[in-house]
Structures are given as C-alpha cells and as structure tokens.
C-alpha cells in the first residue's frame, strides 16, 4: 500500500488551487477544511465564554449574594461583583444559549461535519462550497448581535434559553431586559439560517458525492450521524425560525401570537391578545427536542469510529447502529411533549408522549450494548481519544437512564424543573457530547494540522476532567431528589433547601477547578499545532478513508482517485496480515 506511507506528498499540492491570497485562503475560504476549522475555533472561543457564564451561576449558588472575586465585575455587570437576581437569570439564559447554539451545534455539524464529510466519503469538497462559506459567515451576525446584547441597556436576554412567553414577550415583565431579548431572537434566526444552509449542503454531498464503491452501508458511523442530523435540521428548524419570527413580532410589532386576551404584567396591559402562551412551547420544542438529537447523534457517530479504531476490532452491529440512529431521529419528532407534561397541556396527551418517550430509550440502549460489544474481545489501546470515547459510553449510560425518570409522567410531576433535569442534560451534553468532541479533537487533530497532540498531557486532561465532571454533575441528581428547583437566584430562601448549601459549595469548587483544568487542553492544542511531532497520513492505523489523504489534506483532498472496496471497520481481518484493512486497499489477488 503505497498511499499509507507516502508522506512525502503531504501538503504538496496544498496551495496551487487558490491564488487569492490570505483573505481568500483563510478567511473567506471555500475549502471545507478551512471552514470546518473556522467553526472549530469560534466554537472553542464561545465554549470559553459559556464556561465563564457557568462560573457565575455556580458562584451564586455556593455563596449567594456574596461579591464574586475576579470575574464578578464582568459577569455581574454591577460594581463590587455582586450578582443581582436579574443578572443571575441572565447568566442562566445565556450560558444555555451560548453552549447550545454557539458551541455544541456548530462544533458538531459545523466543525466536524464540514471537515470530515468530504474526506470520509472521498469527495473533493462540499457539493456547494459557496453555500458552505455562507453558512459560516451567517454565524457572525449572530455572534455580533448576541455578543452586543450583553452591553445594551438592561443586559442580555433573561427569559431562559427556552424564551417562554409572556415573560419573553411583554417588555414590562422583565423591566431590566429591554433590547436583550429582541437581539437574542434576531441572533437565533441567523443561527437558524446558517444551520439550514449547512444541512442542505451535507445532505446533497453525502447523497451525491461519494467516491466509487462507497455505498451507503459502507459509510462510517460519523457520516451516518451527520447525515441523519442534517435531515433532522432540515425538517425541524423551519418551525423554530417561524416561531422565532412570531415572537419577534409579538415583541416589537404588537401582534399577539403567544399572548392570551387581556395579557398584562407589571400593571402594563397589552393591547394585543387572542393567542396562547402554550403555542410557543409546542413550536419551540418541536424544534428543540430534535435539536437534542442534533446535539448527540454526530457525537455518537464519532465515538463509534474511535471505539472501533482503538479496540482494533470491527464495530459490533453496524446495521443495527444505523437503524437505531434512524429510529432515534424518527421518534425524535413525536416526543417533544415530554418537556410539557406539567405545562398545562392536555394531560391525555401526556400519556401518548410518555409512551413515545419511553420508546426512544430503546435505540439508545441498542447503541450502548453495541458499543460494549465492540470492546468485547478487542485489544484496547488506551490513547487519549479512546479514553474520551469510552467515557462517552460510560456517561451516556447515566444520561440515558436518568431520562427514564422524567419520561415517566407521575415522577416527572415532582422532578420537572428541578436539578434532576439539570443533571440529566449535562450528563448527555457535557459528559456525553463535549467529552466526545474532546476525543474527536485529539483523534482528528493530526489530520487537521498534520501534527500529533501530546498524549501524556491529553491523558492528564482526560483524567482530571472525567473525575471532576462527575463530582460536579452526579450530586445534582440527589439535589433534584430533594426537589431543588432550577434557575433560582437564591434557593436558600426556602428553608427546605437550606441544608443543601454545603453540597452546592462542593459542586461549585469542583466546577471552578474543572474549568481551570481546561488550560492543559488549550496549551496542548496550540503547542501541538506548531511544535507537535509530524503525524504522517495514518498515525492511528485506521481504516477510514480520511486517513488515506495527506495530513493535512491539500485543496481537493486526495492525491489519488479513491476506490472503495469495503466498510471502514475491517480491523483484525483474517484476509490481511496487518490488523487493519483500509477502505481503499484492493483485495489480495486470488
């Protein structure tokens, strides 16, 4: 196999395709890899911002009303660093908004989707490169508007990331928040446009541009995750965009889509009415529940690829894995009501949504068992990406099982809007997706930059993050057990919750340290970008097509025409001597 070791070609043809200079090459680039990296860097910067916002929340829960040292002046927006209650609701709202819309969705679909799809299917680039570039540059108005909203009078949005009306619609209901909420809605629309352009492009590329021999059932799980995610986005997102416009009109143009007749707040009577606050919740969750899967399916795909690579063993049950992703996506459209069990929705509907929600745990269970099956009988190499991938499985078990509690309607009556929910979705989104993203960065870094990240420091980063995140998020289950509600600036106002203060202080200190530990990752990332050892084409001895391209791949990706002979998980195949069998390697002549 000449292509496996032929590192001399690496970067050879990198530059002759673009003559436009720096701006065309690195800023307004049409190359999917550059766009992917742009998404990656902006997501990582926002990850830092979202983390700081979380620190503010944790400070207030550990030391209510005490001035916050160091960060206080910045986060509290007031002299002395004391977090005012309206600032606390702002922190809660913006932490979620930033993490969901500016970090997780863009880093999965934007960064890894862009970078990996053409490389893994053997295409030169995306189907519509211009659309791809626009999908990144439409994020910038969102970044700017959302960033600016922190500095307008009254500060950023305070209505929760779910932005439930009437609180989010009647200006007088949140006197501090004047334009912040309006800017929030505008920014969200921009994110929606960006995602939509991306998803159309991904679907087209995956359907139309696969290399010869790359049948649908030879696609790696990462691509299946991205493909199904793109479909979910294409069908669910228009609903959120439309609902966002309606809420914007309610706010600025006096319509009343989400206001009941005679709506009033703080002595201000709204002229409009005739709408229904619950309508927003239906429309919002019709998008935002599928969005939960948008935020995890690509991560599941990437984890499957990493697990198989480092277990040196074929993925267990490839087709059931594909079908279960499809099942999750399909069921994902009919479970949104489980966010609304106690919202005032007809309780009869609660039963339907309960059954559908229970059923969606099934494909997740199938996936978990198949991951365990992949490890069974392998030769596991504990590299940094592998540790992150295994931790995804371990943490997803917790996040998945805790979901069953809230799917059960009578139990949900008690735990709804408590820290039980907070524990659940942080296990899925932080301990799950964010850990998978870390793993994916360590895994594909060599392909992105042609150099390896430091494995020893990677493991230190992993071990500390893994232990600390469990110290932060696991105790939240028992907080929720007591009925400890979310989004309270001072829960100790209630005698019932006063004895929870020490536990909250423990959680907060673990969170502070965990954020600090990420410095190890940042230094490792940037140091390795310039000084890491050269990677070569296929440092992990992986089968995937992307590892046959030079590291980093030049414009047009492949220096040969890829011809695919098999699926990506043929590790330990008896047909060849090596323990891996790349997708492009022709079968031995008879």
């Amino acid at each position: 196999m000449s292509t496996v070791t032929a590192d001399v070609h690496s970067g050879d043809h990198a530059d002759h395709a673009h003559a436009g200079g720096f701006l065309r090459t690195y800023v307004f680039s049409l190359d999917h890899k550059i766009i992917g990296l742009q998404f990656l860097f902006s997501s990582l910067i926002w990850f830092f911002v979202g983390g700081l916002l979380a620190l503010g929340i944790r400070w207030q829960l550990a030391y209510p009303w005490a001035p916050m040292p160091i960060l206080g002046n910045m986060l509290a927006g007031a002299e002395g660093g004391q977090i005012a209650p309206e600032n606390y609701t702002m922190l809660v709202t913006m932490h979620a908004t930033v993490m969901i819309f500016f970090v997780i969705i863009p880093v999965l679909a934007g960064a890894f989707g862009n970078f990996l799809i053409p490389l893994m299917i053997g295409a030169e680039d995306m189907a519509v490169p211009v659309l791809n570039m626009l999908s990144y540059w439409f994020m910038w108005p969102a970044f700017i508007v959302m960033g600016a909203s922190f500095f307008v009078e009254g500060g950023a949005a305070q209505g929760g990331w779910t932005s439930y009306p009437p609180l989010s619609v009647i200006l007088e209901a949140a006197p501090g928040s004047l334009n912040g909420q309006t800017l929030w809605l505008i920014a969200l629309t921009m994110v929606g446009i960006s995602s939509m352009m991306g998803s159309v492009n991904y679907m087209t590329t995956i359907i139309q541009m696969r290399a010869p021999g790359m049948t649908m059932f030879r696609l790696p799980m990462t691509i299946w995750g991205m493909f199904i995610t793109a479909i979910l986005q294409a069908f669910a997102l228009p609903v959120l965009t439309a609902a966002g416009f309606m809420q914007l009109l309610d706010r600025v143009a006096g319509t009343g889509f989400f206001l009941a007749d005679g709506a009033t707040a703080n002595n201000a009577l709204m002229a409009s009415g005739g709408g229904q606050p619950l309508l927003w919740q239906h429309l919002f969750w019709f998008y935002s529940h599928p969005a939960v899967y948008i935020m995890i399916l690509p991560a599941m795909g990437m984890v499957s690829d990493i697990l198989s690579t480092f277990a040196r063993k074929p993925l267990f049950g490839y087709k059931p894995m594909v079908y279960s992703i499809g099942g999750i996506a399909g069921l994902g459209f009919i479970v949104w009501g489980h966010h609304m069990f106690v919202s005032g929705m007809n309780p009869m509907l609660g039963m339907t949504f309960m059954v559908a929600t229970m059923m969606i745990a099934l494909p997740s269970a199938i996936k978990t068992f198949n991951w365990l099956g992949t490890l069974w009988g392998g030769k596991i190499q504990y590299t940094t990406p592998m540790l992150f991938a295994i931790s995804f499985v371990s943490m997803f078990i917790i996040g998945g099982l805790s979901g069953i509690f809230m799917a059960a309607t009578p139990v949900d009556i008690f735990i709804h809007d408590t820290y039980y929910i907070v524990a659940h979705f942080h296990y899925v989104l932080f301990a799950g997706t964010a850990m998978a993203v870390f793993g994916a960065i360590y895994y594909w870094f060599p392909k992105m930059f042609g150099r390896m990240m430091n494995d020893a420091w990677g493991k230190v980063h992993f071990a500390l993050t893994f232990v600390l995140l469990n110290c932060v998020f696991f105790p939240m289950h028992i907080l929720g057990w007591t009925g400890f509600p979310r989004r309270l600036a001072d829960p100790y106002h209630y005698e019932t919750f006063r004895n929870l203060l020490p536990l909250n202080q423990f959680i907060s200190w673990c969170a502070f340290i965990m954020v600090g530990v990420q410095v190890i990752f940042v230094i490792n990332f940037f140091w390795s970008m310039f000084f890491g050892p050269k990677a070569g084409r296929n440092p992990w001895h992986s089968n995937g097509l992307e590892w046959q391209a030079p590291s980093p791949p030049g414009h047009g990706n492949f220096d040969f025409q890829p011809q695919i002979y098999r699926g990506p998980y043929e590790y330990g195949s008896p047909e060849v001597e090596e323990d891996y069998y790349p997708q492009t390697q022709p079968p031995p002549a008879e």
Partner: protein
Amino acid sequence: MKRFWSLLFLLVPIGGVATFLVAPYFNIVLPRDVSVHGRVIDNLFMFILYLTGAVFIVTELVLFYFMWKYDAKSNSKPVKYSHGSHSLEIVWTILPAVTLLFIAIYQMDAWATAKMNPPNIKPHAEVTGRQFNWDFRYPGGDDELYTEDDIVRTDGKLYLPVDEDILLKITSADVLHSFFLPNLRLKQDVVPGMTQSMWFKAKKTGGYDIVCAELCGWGHYKMKGRVFFLPREEYDQKILEMAAEQNTMRVDLPDEDE
C-alpha cells in the same frame, strides 16, 4: 498503573451508588410526604431508581470488565473478528422494549389520578400566580367563588383543611409560574388565560413551602408561599377570622368628582 484506566472507570458505578447511599445521612432525600397520593409517586420513583440502578451497575461493570480484560498490553489473544450477532441484537432490543413499555403502562394510573380525574367538589380556593407572589381567593360563607363574600388574601399564606379532598383552581395574572408543592409531590404550571384545577388530600397538619418552579422574572427566587393544613374546626375558625378581618378593612377611594 497498568490497569489504571479500567479502575478509573470502575469509580463511576461505585461513586454513583455511594452518592445515593450516603445522601440520606446528610438529610438529602425526598422531602417529607404529607399527601395521600404522594406515596404512589415516591414508589414509582424508587421503582425506576432500582431498575435503572441495576442496569447502571451491570453495564458499568461490564464496561469495566472489558476494559480490564481486553487491554492491548495484557491481552495476547487475537481480536474476535466479529461484526455483531443477530440473536444478541434481537435479545437486547426486545428486553428493553418490553421493560420500557411496562414502565410506561405502569405509570398511567398514577398520572390519571393526579391530573385527569378531579373530585366532584366545589373549589376550596383560587390560586393566582403573579410577579412575585401567590394570591388566594376563598369562596367565603356561601362556598361559591366570585361572589361578594369572597375572601382575597395577598399574604402568600394558603389555609386548607387536612384529611379532606381539596380542589384548587389555579391560574396566572401575568407570566408563566409553576405551583409546586414539594411535600405533596404536586406541580402544575399556571398559564395566563387558562384556569386549571389541582386536587389532593393532605394527611398531616402543619405549614409547607409553595415553590415557584417556572422562571418568571428577576424575582423568581423569592416567589415563595406557604400552605397550612388545619383540622376542620381550626380551618373554619380561620376562614371566619379572615372574613371578619376583610370586613373591617377600609380602602380610601379618591373622590370621583374631580
């Protein structure tokens, strides 16, 4: 050091179980249940906790065992070149499917009792959430709401008889709130423009927290109320007291001539 990583992952089930076992010693448990139906919800909670707990422990231990046993450094056997097993897939599809369906169906009765079958009685009070207070309106002597002898209280204290079926009408005056009684395992969002019902039966006297559980603005954290369950005689006495207090209250209206 060799088996360090598998042992690190073994900490997950150990720490997880330990957290739930140790919590009661710090009084971190389900709040005291003073309702008749709350026991059903608590039992369902514990049922799911034991069930998912068992699955959690088993899967995490399997993960640990595989990590321990199939470490590339110590496992000298060739890898199992297997693409999966059809029969295993069927087993681990059907087993969870049946269990999950069972859990869903098992919950339905409790849900119907809590949210779908109100008792056929007159409401004891109307609860209105407003930024940032719970207001209560009692029917007064004639047992009918929205008549002249209604008693309206804005002090955030709700008085109800113990050991009797209670029916409340709940609504909101401005934004969404959620009427959450942790000690009665009850929660219902209140929505402006919608009047909903809530019913329960308390079995212990005393005062308990009313928590707002839906973000309702800057003062959300202090939207606290108290519910007091009194024996029937004391309750009747309290209603008379409040009615008398209201009758002596004077509100000076501005002159309308101006």
